């Protein structure tokens, strides 16, 4: 059996360093397996979040050789094993310990987005009728597993730390699926413009690139939302229409 070396960040908010661990590897292994082997054999107290180990819960986000990824979906055979594999916590969020970061900011942001407000049901039994074609798009956004890798990679948050002014790609697609839900009647456009800071996104598409669910975050969610904001606030023709009738 061959071995590989993992250079894992150990430490907490007061500081820390990378530590090298060498472990045996086998066919089909993913980075999370290696971290678990290390935890069981060399470092019982190595902190790591994980749940499903199948790319469905979005718990085991980390930066592997500098790339934001799910540890459970990163096969070792996709990495150059002749040199140490670096595994470090998401940089954008405050560190708790080792590979675990404090992502509570994300949960607070979601609370600030206006919730679903349904229109009257279509049928007497209290149900709605929706065509599959009309929900394909919001269903794409609802695939999100809240791994927060898109938040981690977004430069508005990662480099500029604009946590009070910008909700990040995860919550722009959250807002988008609400906006595009056929039974929703809420208006989130003013909030998107001001409170949620959609203008900060300059569509570099880094979020789309790292999304483990392959959600087309920028093209399918953020740009259409930007268009709604532009139509409402910056389109001179639409402004004229609104001013002079076209009720």
């Amino acid at each position: 059996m061959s071995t590989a070396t993992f250079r894992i960040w150990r430490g907490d908010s007061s500081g820390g360093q990378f530590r090298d661990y060498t472990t045996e590897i086998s066919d089909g292994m993913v980075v999370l397996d290696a971290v678990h082997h290390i935890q069981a054999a060399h470092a019982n107290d190595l902190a790591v979040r994980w749940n499903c180990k199948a790319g469905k819960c979005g718990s085991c986000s980390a930066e592997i050789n500098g790339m934001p990824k799910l540890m459970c979906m990163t096969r070792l055979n996709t990495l150059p094993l002749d040199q140490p594999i670096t595994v470090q916590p998401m940089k954008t969020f405050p560190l708790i310990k080792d590979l675990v970061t404090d992502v509570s900011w994300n949960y607070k942001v979601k609370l600030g987005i206006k919730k679903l407000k349904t229109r009257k049901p279509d049928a007497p039994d209290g149900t709605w009728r929706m065509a599959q074609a009309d929900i394909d798009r919001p269903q794409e956004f609802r695939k999100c597993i809240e791994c927060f890798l898109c938040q981690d990679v977004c430069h508005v948050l990662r480099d500029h730390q604009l946590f009070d002014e910008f909700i990040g790609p995860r919550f722009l697609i959250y807002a988008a699926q609400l906006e595009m839900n056929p039974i929703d009647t809420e208006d989130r456009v003013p909030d998107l413009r001001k409170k949620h800071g959609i203008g900060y996104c300059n569509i570099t598409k880094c979020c789309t690139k790292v999304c483990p669910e392959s959600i087309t975050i920028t093209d399918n969610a953020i740009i259409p939302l930007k268009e709604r904001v532009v139509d409402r606030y910056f389109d001179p023709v639409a402004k004229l229409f609104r001013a002079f009738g076209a009720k």
Partner: protein
Amino acid sequence: MAAEYQTFEHDVLVIGAGGAGLRAAIEASAGGVKVGVVSKSLLGKAHTVMAEGGMAASMGNVDDRDNWRVHFSDTMRGGQYLNNPRMAELHAKDAPARVRELEAWGALFDRTKDGRILQRNFGGHRYPRLAHVGDRTGLEMIRTLQDHGIHQGIDFHMECTIITLLLDAGRVVGAFGYDRERGRYQLYHAKAVVLATGGIGRAYKITSNSWEYTGDGMSLAYHAGATLLGMEFVQFHPTGMIWPPSVRGILVTEGVRGDGGVLLNNQGKRFMFDDIPANYKNQTADTPDEGWRYTQGDKNARRPPELLTRDHVARCIVREVREGRGSPHGGVFLDISWIKEKLPNAAEHIKKKLPSMYHQFKQLGDVDITQAPMEVGPTMHYMMGGVRVDADTQMSDVPGLFAAGECGAGLHGANRLGGNSLSDLVVFGKRAGEFAAKFAKEHAAGSVDRAQVDEVARQSIEPFERQGESPYQVQYDLQDLMQNLVGIVRRQEELERALEGIAKLKVRAGQVGVSGNREYNPGWHTALDLPNLLTVSEAVARAGLERKESRGAHFRDDYPDKDPAYGTFNFVISKARDGAMRVDREPLPPMTEEQKQIIEEMK
């Protein structure tokens, strides 16, 4: 020494934040009481997220012959009539309303052509009954409940673990535990407690379950004086991934078979046609062609044998492997790619219907399921047994202590039908929340025994003070033991050896040592999970030893047939005065005349 801890005051405390816990919290909050939710993971990560196929509800959107009576009878037949009939009836009746309510809270289920909620076929369900979103229905459910729940004024305590329930004169008055991030103790004072902690998957080596599934709720309830029911019934899902080794156990949804996937042995034979149980003969296709037509919605066709109940399919797979007809890595083949013979654009169709499966095999197993068969084998998936509860209110034998979802028991009898779990979560989660709120309003807060709290806190940090073996090693040894001796096929001598082994592991669990400090320390967390795992493992082995027959998910090599004498009662487990685990027989709850009549009509 007195332990230091933070205290939180709630009327209702919900332990667990999967589908059942969140639904209970939402309902309790709607009842006008102060609700707290404790979860071991972050919100939205609980195991519900893994559910794939769908939630069963007889809405009749795809086949209007469906109704609650058919769903009730399917559930009872699947459970080999050991189910609590009242729970099976409530479940069948309430499920459609629970599905519609999710839609009103933002869930977007796949649609029928006329814009209603689409329903799919699943094992043991007579008609297409599962509301679903591709193969990620669990994610849709948990996210919907989470996103609705956060606006209901509920306090969420994420990444906290409960070590013990607190009692006052036999009534539950709260719980004591710690936060995983900092390792600080926490005392939750509550008038009623809802357990929604899920199952026991981590007692087994090959499982589809996450680390959280350590039987906490069942163990907490047992030690608080509640009764456990049907603990011998552990469901092995017939189709888990088996190759490569690191993915062993990860679930492959039954939806693959519902959409036309077939099981083949290494001779390319559809072996499921070889053994069709008598009580399903009338409902099962005679030919592969009839089975295919069923999966494509032909109302006159009967379902293919791949969609027989999970216990039966799992055993047939074990038989093929044992008799030398297995796949290279010790499973069988599950093939959906063959439908290209029947459908144009089959590859696109498969990707649309089973996106997660496509993704999972492609990324983790280097298999393109639109082109090649998957290798699959049984994986421990679900616990039918659990805390015995009142059918209507979900209250256990301990006043003020409720249980819902997988942690509770009664609905599924000896075997659960696929799709009946997601509906179970919301149907009985709602009931537990409703009645816990009612209980809280009718009772004053109890008092907490500080000496008990101090003692529990003191014991919990003992692993730091010892130079013992690693808690992981004890857990691995337990998983090996349960897999080998209390697995899918059982026998007397092995079960007895298992009990001896568990007794030894209990001693070892009391001697483990951990390093580091209390901040986010998975070694310490594992040490504290061990007593729960050992309690539920012992319960499974003891009940399994007593049931000297084969029924549903419980298969005894030494008693391979069903014995009618065992069809009139359930085994219940409780803690005797001397602390030993006792097993008793409890007659089945009687059926109403109407229930009897339904079952007779649909035989």
